[in-house]
């Protein structure tokens, strides 16, 4: 039953909401538009909104002259690698907690989640020194493992909330029919768990892609992903305004596209299943 809202108020709210949306979206739009301007046009006063000579020269230059392809590749390897590694560790754990809960399961989950609240800088010092001692600073493999460690609590928690929704009766029935543990996992659990696993994967790729604290501090040039690349531009002084916009656009585009398709999962994941 839909709540009836007076027509006039509905129109007012719609207009206000769209104005607010425009205001909120403007910085992103502006970055996008600037990336198609020449450097001179980018700092033109007054700024031109749409009527300028659109050019793709910034994208070409960023692509050719910087190590952009390397940064991009690092982002892909680190975000996907850490997520897949995390799933390998987390799926058995979430499965165990969802289907063979003990009286401590909730406490364990709560405890794992609470580790997310700890300040990352405190963990950084020993991890940095350890990586330095074993010569793994600025390597992709180190970043993959670290990002996995950082996101593991979220991965376990998210998978747990999805697995919890799989009716235990079906598994019970399969057991009654004599399915072995292996068959139960391959034929029954896996197909039902795929959507949850896919959502978890998506969210963690986004989180890992945007992660900057660890990537800035543990990489220099070889394993630096896009966040570190963009951070290195942080004092542009108007010189590379357009190029930086192009680099930023290329860095956020994959996430904006993924985000468009996955906003529901995003919200659910970010709230640890509190919001369905």
């Amino acid at each position, binding site marked *: 039953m839909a709540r009836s809202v007076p027509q006039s108020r509905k129109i007012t709210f719609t207009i206000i909401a769209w104005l607010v949306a425009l205001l909120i979206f403007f910085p992103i739009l502006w970055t996008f538009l600037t990336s198609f301007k020449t450097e001179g046009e980018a700092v033109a006063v007054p700024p031109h909104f749409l009527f300028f000579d659109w050019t793709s020269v910034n994208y070409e230059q960023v692509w050719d002259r910087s190590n952009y392809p390397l940064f991009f590749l690092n982002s892909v390897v680190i975000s996907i690698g850490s997520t897949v590694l995390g799933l390998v560790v987390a799926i058995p*754990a979430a499965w165990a907690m969802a289907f*063979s809960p003990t009286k401590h399961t909730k406490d364990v989950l709560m405890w794992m989640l609470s580790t997310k609240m700890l300040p990352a800088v405190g963990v950084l010092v020993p991890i940095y020194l350890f990586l330095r001692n074993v010569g793994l600073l600025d390597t992709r493999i180190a970043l993959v493992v670290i990002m996995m460690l950082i996101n593991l609590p979220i991965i376990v928690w998210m998978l747990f909330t999805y697995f919890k929704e799989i009716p235990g009766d079906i598994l019970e029935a399969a057991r009654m029919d004599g399915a072995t543990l292996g068959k139960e996992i391959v034929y029954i659990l896996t197909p039902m768990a795929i959507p949850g696993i896919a959502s978890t994967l998506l969210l963690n790729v986004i989180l890992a892609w945007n992660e900057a604290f660890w990537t800035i501090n543990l990489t220099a040039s070889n394993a630096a992903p896009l966040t570190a690349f963009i951070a290195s531009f942080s004092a542009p002084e108007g010189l590379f305004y357009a190029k930086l916009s192009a680099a930023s656009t290329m860095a956020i585009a994959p996430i904006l596209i993924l985000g468009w398709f996955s906003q529901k999962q995003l919200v659910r994941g970010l709230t640890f299943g509190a919001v369905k």
Partner: protein
Amino acid sequence: MKPRRLRNVAAQTALIPSWLIVIFAYIGTIAWTIRISFTSSGIFPHYDWVGLKQYDRLFDSHRWVVSVQNLAIFGVIFIVGCLVLGFLLAVFLDQKIRGEGILRTLFLYPYAMSFIVTGLVWQWILNPTLGIEQAMHAWGWSSFSFDWLARGDRAIYLVAFAGIWQSAGLVMAILLAGLRGIDEDLWKAARVDGIPAWRIYLSVVIPMLSGMFVTALVLLGIAVVKVYDLVVAMTGGGPGISTEVPAKFVIDYLFNRQNVALATAAASVMFVAVFVVVGPWLYSQYLRRRPGEAS
């Protein structure tokens, strides 16, 4: 009975890798960090014992005091701003307006951008020599002046503002889900009794959403403790040291000043602070479930 026991053993075995990782990655590193904070380590950690000397130095450091103050200012403005703006956006979207799906995505989009990009974009827009100020001058408003980003006493407020821009959408999404769960009859009853909508929101809806507010609060709190990349991208801690935050303090002492002991002391103080804040919340969660919950 035997297969069932096998299953349970398998289940507990499946938990071991996660346990080991969490114990190693968190408990181990924290214990080590706290231990080193009582030493006189320089570039390399060593294991002597100088008591609370590093903590004395830490709180004598002007920069640390400024960092902590900034974190407090940022934290309060950021959390209150996100909750208020997020709630207003959620209420707007709950009015059955046109294009709600697109609007929700647009509101949430900033959250999909990293703090790095957020900081950079706002740095340009708010930069007195590049952004809004110049545009306003060019459009004829020559007395327009907005130089907070270059002012030591104001820049931290702009950092908080950029943070709100980034995270308010998340709060909106959480609260919107809560608003959707509220019974339509509430609104009918209110209309029959002639109670204005804002009163309903204030005295009925907000209390009903308290669980959602707590979830949002915890997420925002995590972001406050973590704040680092936003500051690095937006102000680099400046002008001067006016927007320094504790996380940046730790990293500067670790990398640039090669003082591991002081860095770990600062990190330990952050641990204790977080523990003092989060501990009671965890404890209440734990207690609330106690009476007769099976799982």
